[in-house]
């Protein structure tokens, strides 16, 4: 049977080899555990004389305390070393996860939809290939109107419909106005229609296909202040609370009165100056957003709604236009060229 001193020197030896926390745990168990060496020494107590017992007991106790202390100290040391150890370059990149992208226009469409959804407007979907009736006649644009000629509208080579006229690619989302009036039957109408639109125009600043978003509100007692307030709300939600909207007189066949909406230049914030120089983006601190107006009585009539009882407002803005204004991404030709270097940035 090993004596107290043997156990101590044995322990000191083994402690030197306890190079990690797992080994130290084993060492601790073999000395301080229930079946450990300390408890084995205590079991020897009964073979001692009553006189010896007191000092023997004291010695074991001291040994136990000393072992416990040494183990605790080493444990602290090893734990610290473990947390600090290793030669990992923490500046290296982590595991790479797939990163795809959503098209810039899809992102804007979601942003716009959400803003209008919160104030009770529902998003709809109407044909992109339309008849003249929905794109023009119903919108108070007579046959002779310039927008209806070959230079402004893309026509489809198809038989002319006896009732609805020629087939075309819708040049604006306004073609959905009368369709929505027919669908609902009776006001209220709160529509937001976001869709592809087409015009035969392809150059540095135009693409033959582009997106518009159309708002239409028809109800009893709708007046110009409602149009103005709703647009101002959109402008602040989309561009920021420091951006103002304003209306200027304009002309469209399907609204009366008609307006053009300007917003505070998003670059110079309306100051016309950027770092002391003249703002290159805007004229006089304002940027044109698009067209709007009070729904023309003839359009309501075409929608089978009584213009004496109901009134409304409508607007149609370019999705690419608001993206350019908000994010400054103005090379519109890249939008639909399918270049991965453009797409994957969003």
């Amino acid at each position: 049977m090993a004596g107290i001193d043997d156990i101590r020197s044995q322990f000191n030896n083994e402690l030197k080899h306890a190079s990690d926390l797992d080994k130290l745990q084993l060492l601790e168990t073999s000395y301080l555990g229930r079946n450990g060496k300390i408890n084995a020494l205590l079991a020897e107590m009964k073979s001692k004389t009553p006189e010896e017992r007191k000092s023997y007991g004291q010695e074991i106790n001291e040994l136990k305390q000393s072992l416990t202390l040494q183990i605790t100290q080493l444990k602290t040391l090893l734990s610290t070393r473990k947390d600090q150890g290793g030669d990992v370059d923490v500046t290296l990149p982590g595991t790479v996860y797939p990163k795809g992208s959503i098209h810039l226009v899809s992102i804007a469409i979601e942003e716009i939809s959400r803003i209008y959804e919160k104030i009770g407007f529902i998003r709809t979907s109407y044909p992109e290939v339309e008849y003249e009736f929905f794109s023009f006649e119903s919108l108070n644009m007579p046959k002779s109107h310039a927008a209806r000629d070959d230079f402004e509208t893309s026509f489809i080579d198809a038989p002319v419909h006896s009732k609805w006229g020629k087939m075309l690619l819708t040049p604006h989302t306004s073609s959905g106005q009368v369709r929505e009036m027919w669908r609902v039957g009776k006001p209220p109408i709160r529509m937001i229609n976001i869709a592809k639109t087409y015009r035969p125009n392809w150059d540095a600043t135009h693409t033959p296909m582009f997106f518009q978003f159309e708002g239409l509100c028809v109800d009893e007692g709708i007046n110009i202040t409602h149009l103005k307030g709703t647009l101002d709300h959109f402008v602040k939600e989309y561009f920021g609370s420091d951006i103002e909207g304003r209306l200027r007189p304009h002309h469209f066949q399907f609204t009366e009165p008609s307006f053009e909406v300007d917003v505070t230049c998003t670059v110079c914030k309306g100051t016309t100056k950027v770092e002391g120089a003249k703002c290159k983006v805007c004229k006089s601190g304002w940027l044109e957003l698009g067209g709007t107006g009070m729904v023309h009585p003839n359009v309501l009539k075409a929608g089978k709604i009584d213009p004496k009882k109901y009134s409304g407002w409508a607007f149609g803005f370019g999705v690419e236009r608001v993206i350019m204004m908000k994010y400054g991404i103005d090379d519109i030709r890249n939008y639909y060229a399918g270049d991965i270097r453009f797409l994957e940035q969003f």
Partner: protein
Amino acid sequence: MNIKITHNWLLEYLETDATPVEIQKYLSLCGPSVESVEKTDDGDYVYEIEITSNRIDSASVFGIALECQAILPMFGKKAKLILNPLDKYRFADVETRHASSLQVTIKDPSLCSRFSAVVLDNVKTIPSPDFIQERLRAIGIKVINNVVDVSNYLMVSFGQPTHVFDFDKIGKHTMIMRESKKGELIVTLDGKKVELPGGDIVIEDGNGELIDLCGIMGGLNSSFTDKTKRVLLFVQTYNKQLIRRTSMLTGQRTIAATYFEKGLDEERVETTLSYGVELLKSYANAQVTSVVTDIQSKKYSPRTISFSLSEINYKIGVNIEPKQVQRILTSLGFGVQSSGSKYTVTVPSFRQYDVEIVEDIVEEIARIYGYHNLPNHLSPATYVKQPKAFEDLFVYQNKIKTYLKHIGLNEVLNYSMISLEMIEGLDLKPSDHLFLSNVMSEEIKYLRTTLLPSLIKNIKTNEGRKDQLKLFELAKVYERREGDLPEEKYKLGIAVTTSYEDLKGVVEALLQELHIQESLFTSSDNSYCSSIQTTLIIKGKTVGTLGKLKTQYKDKNNLSSECFIAELDFDTLISHARTISTYQPLHPFAIIKLDHTVTFDKKITFEMFKNRAFKKSKLLQKLDVVDRFKDKITVRMYFSSPTHNITEADAKKELQACAR
């Protein structure tokens, strides 16, 4: 269209204390948008002003003066018309003689709503007086000589283009106005030989020569030169549609055409010709030697519009004082009669094509009152139900796009129109496609019936830009229908350059994301794909095919890498989508996992093995592919019972039953 005028020119008609910058600001808010104001070297100011198509009456110095008279007082500025040319310059005041005469025949009165002309003799061609030269130069019009300058000066003053002929070059002093025949030729003033599309307004002289492409540009053969002694001052209004058509078809987008195509006021013809005579008398020493020819096929009978003040206020949303209404309309040239709150307004001839209904009056009052003075109100809250079909369409579009993005795909948006070459690139039938009749580029002629040609083109475009391409597009295709609009169907197209397994993984992951559990992949024989292809079927409905692009088409589209393509019918896909999967109750009993390696061949596919396994074993809960090597596949099968613990022996028995 944009016009330019100068401040001093404006002051000829208007007395005001507003500065040019104030005029710019206030006009832009309430009337025509003044895009810039710039000071000239002579101390004058040049305004560049945008004119909307309905307000061609305001596209002149006088027109802007009228707008100023209405708008500036709203901002506390003085503004008063000091010269009204409509009252001052009348035919009655033109002294006429009978020494010369012009014979005129108008074949169709619908070509020209008013025709006026007068002969002036002894014209002396010299430089214009300084004020005309300075004003024209300031607004960017080339100064030539007194006669040509007067013609331009008239146009800017009143917005009415004029033309000056050399009277002695007009064969037999005879003009026959008619529609052109297709293919007729005329050499215009600028020396260009123009082949006429037919149906254009032209003038033929007594010798059968074309001497004017009306409303666009005069003929070179009859034009005024510095040797001309007798001139014909020529002022008309034309059929606007015909002018626009000719201008667009011949590419002659002259300034005159941009005026005439918007429809000019017949009454201003009189003002313009009369003032023109006065200017030519003063600055070219000319004398009138004929009577004024004046043929008017259509005379304006003044329109009246009646309304009540409350109607106006209801539409604008604020209450406007009767005094204000009176002042605004009068200053714009309307005649106003009122009794109590009832008004009757007479529309002046220069607004006859623009102001027709009470809403037009609302616009005039509201804009001058100032849109900036109106409060902002959100439209009153109400509930409109969004049809489920619309809701699903947009919710799932967004969900699918977002999911595909997160698993590493890039969304692309392509034109809805494609080229014949792209159609042939997949041996599709051109006759299945709708196409544009007025095509501007062969690249965008046909409406897509599938997204795949566009996606294949995208892969081609991006070769060399990225090692692996994974693209998707969610867009409509257009399937032609007899006697109706095409059916517009949303498709989800995917194209990757990685592998068939990768493409199938994307589709399967998407099915999982949409919690579609009843999907089935069957053999298929789509013509664009090699034998590596499969068709996705959900509850018996075909959703679409995915597979490897046939080598033949890979070559035809000049692709250097392999391409794997899928096209799924969006509506069918989302009709089976669910928000969450069917819930499987949890149970505490053991799950025994067993691996099993199977050799597959054409006769027994994995799909068949799987289906049979689930049919044979009630305890089989799940089956995964954990390894594949050549034709050997290791599957891991999970067995358990929801009612009791099974033993490994039980599981092995089940496995044997499955694998047999």
